[in-house]
């Protein structure tokens, strides 16, 4: 096993993506993830990869599409408004079934918003911010080690599902440092081996033009497009079953159940300890995948529970999914901060206690 190293989130994310086999990175500076393009510009060329600073996030996502369509293993990163600009490409890549590893180190919005951490991209990343019917699996880590493991795995997942995979971290995780164990470097694929490994890629068909490839998203005939979308959704239906991940803690016999992901889930864990000192037993559901969302986990909530609370850095975006999971069985309440404000564990515990006393 490798040695523990202390790394800043953003640099650990970048390192993990490289070690997972991502050889190509296209990026554009935006706070709070600019350490990633900086790291990539320094590290990737040394290791046989390619870094290219794009003219915009639109440029970056389309470079990523080109490199991915050509069979390269590609990583991109940005933060909320930059991810918004990339949505044209995300929709395109999903339709064209081009793999991509994407990372959103998110900040507050709307508009340019601020540069402090936020989760208000929840709808943007889980509902697809672009046009048309498509899905992008979204992994939401709560520690740097978990983010590293996800980014390491993501290139393989993207290839398996022929789709972008998004890792959704908040700005706190980008800036914090934690000890991590870095996995072994997976080998990069040589250009000459791409065709064998990814027979759909546009590489130049060589001598046999019967193997010509086209990567595309335009389908002018409505019946053709309908068939294509239905085909994509058969794939997404499978992904929904296979990819869903969740962590639960004491939900079988809790007075209240908190639902939170990312950094907020960590704050919630501490809030649960504070609540326990006050005689309130709180459980936690931490969605690890935001799409597919772990709706089934809510069936595990026991009869003792009086209320389910969505704790989030947005105005109830996560709560919509929580309500879908809970149904009409229990009231669902919201504890949130937004704009870059983050609740302490004490604030979270106080507000949860107040809600509990109101519904009890």
């Amino acid at each position, binding site marked *: 096993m490798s040695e523990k190293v202390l790394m800043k989130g953003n640099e650990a994310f970048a390192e993990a993506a490289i070690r997972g086999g991502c050889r*190509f990175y*296209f990026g554009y500076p935006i706070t709070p993830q600019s350490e990633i393009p900086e790291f990539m510009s320094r590290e990737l060329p040394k290791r046989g990869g*390619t870094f*290219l600073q*794009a*003219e*915009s996030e*639109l*440029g*970056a996502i*389309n*470079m*990523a*599409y*080109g*490199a*991915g*369509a*050509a*069979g*390269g293993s*590609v990583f991109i990163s940005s933060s909320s408004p930059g991810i918004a600009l990339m949505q*044209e*490409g995300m929709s*395109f890549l999903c339709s*064209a079934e081009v793999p991509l590893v994407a990372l959103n180190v998110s900040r507050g919005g709307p508009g340019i918003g601020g540069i402090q951490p936020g989760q208000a991209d929840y709808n943007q990343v889980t509902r697809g911010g672009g046009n048309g019917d498509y899905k992008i699996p979204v992994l939401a880590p709560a520690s740097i080690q978990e983010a590293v493991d996800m980014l390491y795995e993501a290139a393989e997942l993207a290839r398996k599902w022929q789709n972008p995979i998004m890792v959704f971290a908040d700005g706190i995780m980008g800036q914090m440092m934690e000890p991590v164990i870095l996995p072994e470097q997976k080998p990069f694929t040589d*250009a000459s081996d*791409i065709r064998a490994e990814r027979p759909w890629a*546009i*590489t*130049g*068909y*060589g*001598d*046999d*033009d019967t193997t*010509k*490839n*086209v*990567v*595309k*998203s*335009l389908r002018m005939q409505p019946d053709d497009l309908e068939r294509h979308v239905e085909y994509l959704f058969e794939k997404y239906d499978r992904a929904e079953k296979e990819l869903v991940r969740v962590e639960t803690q004491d939900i079988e016999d809790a007075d209240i159940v908190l639902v939170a992901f990312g950094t907020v889930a960590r704050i919630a864990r501490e809030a649960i300890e504070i609540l326990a000192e006050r005689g309130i037993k709180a459980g936690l559901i931490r969605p690890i995948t935001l799409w597919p969302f772990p709706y089934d986990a809510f069936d595990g909530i026991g009869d003792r529970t009086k209320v389910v609370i969505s704790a989030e850095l947005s105005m109830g975006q996560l709560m919509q999914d929580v309500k879908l999971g809970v149904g009409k069985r229990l009231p669902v309440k919201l504890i949130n901060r937004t704009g870059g404000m983050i609740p302490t564990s004490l604030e979270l515990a106080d507000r949860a206690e107040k809600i509990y006393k109101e519904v009890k």
Partner: protein
Amino acid sequence: MATPVFEYTKGMHRVDTNFCPGCTHGIAHRLITETLDEMGMLGNAIGVAPIGCSVQAHKFMNVDMCEAAHGRAPAVASGIRRVHPDKLVYTYQGDGDLASIGTAEIVHAAARGEKFTTFFINNCIYGMTGGQMAPTTLIGQKSTTSQDGRTKEQAGNPIRVSELLSTLDGAVYVERVALNTPANIRKAKAAVRRAFEIQRQGLGFTFIEFLSTCPTNWGVTPPDAMKWLTDNMLPYYPLGVYKQPEKQDGEVAK
């Protein structure tokens, strides 16, 4: 048996194109793919065609190809070229695409000296979307969004893309050709060959602007379209080499 004087090129699939009568897209397609065939590079080329009439190129060109979103082909080709530095890469873009929504992508690709070739179809109008004003639409020219003719006051003057890109150091070969006469078409083919050769030498970004027709959206007959191009486009968009490698050697020297 008679000796054939003209044959299909291996570079084009044996299907009918669905371009309008009198449209010069077909000529441009043929010049590009015939050249690749002659260079023995059909199987070592990768093309990008963004949305617009151009987007159908993959149905006709016998080359590995991908579509691109409107305007983004130069970014897409930049990505492809990073993965396959040994292949010939090209984009095939119309004027609405390249000169309007895709200006950032084309300017920066040229500035970076990206080692791919862009073929720019300039017919002074948006084709596929139905004849709207393009950045290249001439003053006085009628379109569905300049129904009394384009005015400088309302829309500014048309953009001359070859001149614009030739100011960038990364663009090493920029030539404007026209597809209006057999002589000009022969010159256009030589330009295509030269662009691919320069790309192969890794000298930088190469750019060929084809002055082309759109009889349907111009509202003229195919023969009149050729005359319209000659009378109206040539004076505003002068043909010629705007940029070429300073030191010419081997195949490149003509």
